[in-house]
């Protein structure tokens, strides 16, 4: 019912907004999206920002109107960014959480989703050392509700919905919005590939993804974070499960209703959860960079992934902490968010050892 209400409200707002304005590019209409939470951000074409709203189970596409190409990329360096954002919001750092960051690939501005302790979401744009709020009132937007059958959600005695779920990551590749979602009831994930502009048809590919471990056990495996990459001339989804193994799926095999088994190419150690992944490039070599909850940032050469044609089919030696493709741990720990500024540089949000939460730009030397 909640989801339905959100959709109805969004629809009404849309209608109200469209009476005076024509349907815009990418099927966006001017109005005020009812965004209840911002868990995940990803940029699409021409400054279109996709917002993953777990609370209403909706993906919003909003036009940031920030689509002027920037060839003079300035590096970002903001120390104690949580304190600065908290001050702008009239509160203290412990009352806010930075949910995600995303770099606009056209303008190279950094966008940052913040949530206050009471759950109110706020979107910011970082221009140099300035942090400015991004208004989501009267903007061109469209939305897509992820749950097709919202009325079937179970209710408890107080009438509140018991459906527990979250959008774990979103991305954009080949004209499609890719969304990984976790269910809090069944141990499973759904992976949706949604054509953009959004249509009424909602021809989403929904997948059940399995985790084949060492040729012996097979389990469902929720995806926590992902990126896309070209490997041997073929497009792949490079994903990491909640239990850290790194897996590959050919993008063209991800079809509606299919049950897909990922090829596990590496296990990245224990007691850790992947946070963010990006694909970087230097010269002819490309790299997968992966931030982790309890590990440093990992760097994996795509060349090694290409060369590693096996799947982890043999039991892992007990003494080894990791298995599969080789990777390097960078001397950067406690990275809580990560995105790509350009081919060779990343924007990192890092909790430093002195407790300061800093947003900074990495140099080429990490590659």
């Amino acid at each position, binding site marked *: 019912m*909640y989801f339905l209400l959100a959709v109805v409200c969004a629809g009404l707002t849309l209608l109200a907004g469209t009476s005076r304005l024509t349907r815009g590019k990418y099927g966006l209409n001017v109005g005020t999206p009812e965004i209840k939470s911002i*868990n995940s951000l990803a940029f699409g074409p021409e400054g279109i920002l996709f917002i993953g709203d*777990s*609370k209403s*189970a909706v993906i919003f596409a909003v036009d940031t109107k920030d689509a002027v190409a920037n060839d003079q990329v300035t590096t970002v360096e903001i120390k104690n960014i949580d304190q600065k954002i908290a*001050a*702008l*919001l*009239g*509160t*203290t750092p412990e009352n*806010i*959480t930075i*949910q995600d960051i995303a770099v606009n690939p056209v303008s190279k501005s950094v966008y940052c989703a913040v949530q206050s*302790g*009471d*759950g*109110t979401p*706020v979107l910011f744009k970082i221009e140099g050392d300035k942090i400015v*709020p991004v208004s989501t009132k009267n903007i061109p937007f469209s939305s897509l509700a992820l749950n097709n059958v919202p009325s*079937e*959600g*179970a*209710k*408890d005695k107080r009438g509140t*919905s*018991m*459906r*527990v*779920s*979250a959008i774990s990551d979103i991305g954009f590749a080949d004209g499609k919005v890719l969304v990984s979602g*976790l269910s*809090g*009831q*069944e*141990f499973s994930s759904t992976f949706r590939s949604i054509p953009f502009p959004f249509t009424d048809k909602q021809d989403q590919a929904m997948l059940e993804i399995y985790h*084949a*471990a*060492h*040729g*012996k*056990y*097979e*389990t469902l495996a929720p995806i926590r974070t992902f990126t896309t990459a070209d490997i041997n001339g073929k497009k792949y989804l490079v994903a990491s499960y*909640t*239990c*850290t193994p790194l897996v590959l799926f050919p993008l063209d095999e991800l079809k509606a209703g299919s049950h897909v088994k990922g090829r596990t190419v590496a*296990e990245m*150690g*224990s*007691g850790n*959860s992947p*946070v963010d992944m990006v694909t970087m490039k230097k010269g002819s070599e490309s790299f997968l960079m992966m931030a982790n*909850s*309890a590990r440093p940032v990992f760097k994996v050469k795509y060349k090694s992934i290409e060369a590693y044609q096996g799947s982890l089919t043999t039991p*892992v030696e*007990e003494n*080894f902490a*990791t*298995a599969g493709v080789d990777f390097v741990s960078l001397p950067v720990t406690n990275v809580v968010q990560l995105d790509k500024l350009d081919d060779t540089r990343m924007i990192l949000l890092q909790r430093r050892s002195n407790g300061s939460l800093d947003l900074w730009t990495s140099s080429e030397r990490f590659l």
Partner: protein
Amino acid sequence: MLIRSCELHGLIFFIVLLQSCDTKKSVNKTFVIRKDQKAVGISFPLKYTEGIPPDSVFAFAEVRLLSKNKSVAILGDYSIVNQTVLFTPLIPFTHGLSYEILVKGKQIDTFEIPKNHSSRAPALLGIFPSADTLPENLLKVYLHFSHPMREGQSARYVTLLKNNSDTIKGAFLDLQPELWNPDRTILTLWLDPGRIKRDLIPNKLLGAPLKKNGSYQIVISKDWTDASGNSLSRSFTKTFTTIIRDSLSPDPDLWKISLPEKRTSNALKIDFHEPLDHSLLQETLTVKNQKGETISGKWQILDEEKVCLFSPDQNWISANYILRIETKLEDLAGNNLNRPFDKDITKKENKKKLGDFAEISFQVKD
């Protein structure tokens, strides 16, 4: 200092009230506007900005946090209604903090958002599974709260203890975003699946978070606050012991169905002989008549999630009925009707796959 707080449900009502009953008094004071226990805005008299043209007020008025450190103007929207300036910050003002209103950089007034009263303290209503004997490969724990809680905090406030003393680090998966229902009153915690899945490195190195024949406690700290900033009324502890792993799918053929009598609305009783997932039980069972129509009625989960009762809204008639079960229904270890949590693919399976539903027929007799 002029402070008055007004318990209202939104700006519109606030303005209506101002106009109808309290216009003269209210324009002399700073009001805190509240909605759902949150301080969502303030209003202050336009005369605070005397000498400034109304269309320039927003350029000269500021609301800041009262702080020893240098504070900045808080982001938000200003508007002028009835000789009153309304300021709505991007996020509600924080309970326990004080703020100041400045015009042309000079302090004109201050206001405080007091801490919420403990009578409104949130409580933990239940922890599921509710049994005190659980399999060592327990996969999920559900926490049910009375109020919407602050998100992203479970790693800090939920602890798994062994023998009331040793904290088991990394027992729960640190998942961001966390898994909440839309109201933020139900949270799912997963025991680290990498440690439960057999043969993965975390499983090999650290073992499963729980071991059989152990005594464990899940402790929820009272320091956890709800979305309005109120701490839990008290800490909560669930104590349980562990038994051997459960690697078997629930099997409806083994369930016991106790039939009701016709011309009564007595409950149909289904005994699973094992606890099943509390949340999935709420939505995976349906009773249908011969025509395939769903019988409306109430479901109850009893006996530590081992039993379900279905009481129909209309009396039973002498006829055949079908209990339809969605096969995604899981036991406490994540084994569903179609597959165990981790399937040994080297072993051949004899069991036939059920599809999306399993069905049990029963007859209410004369």
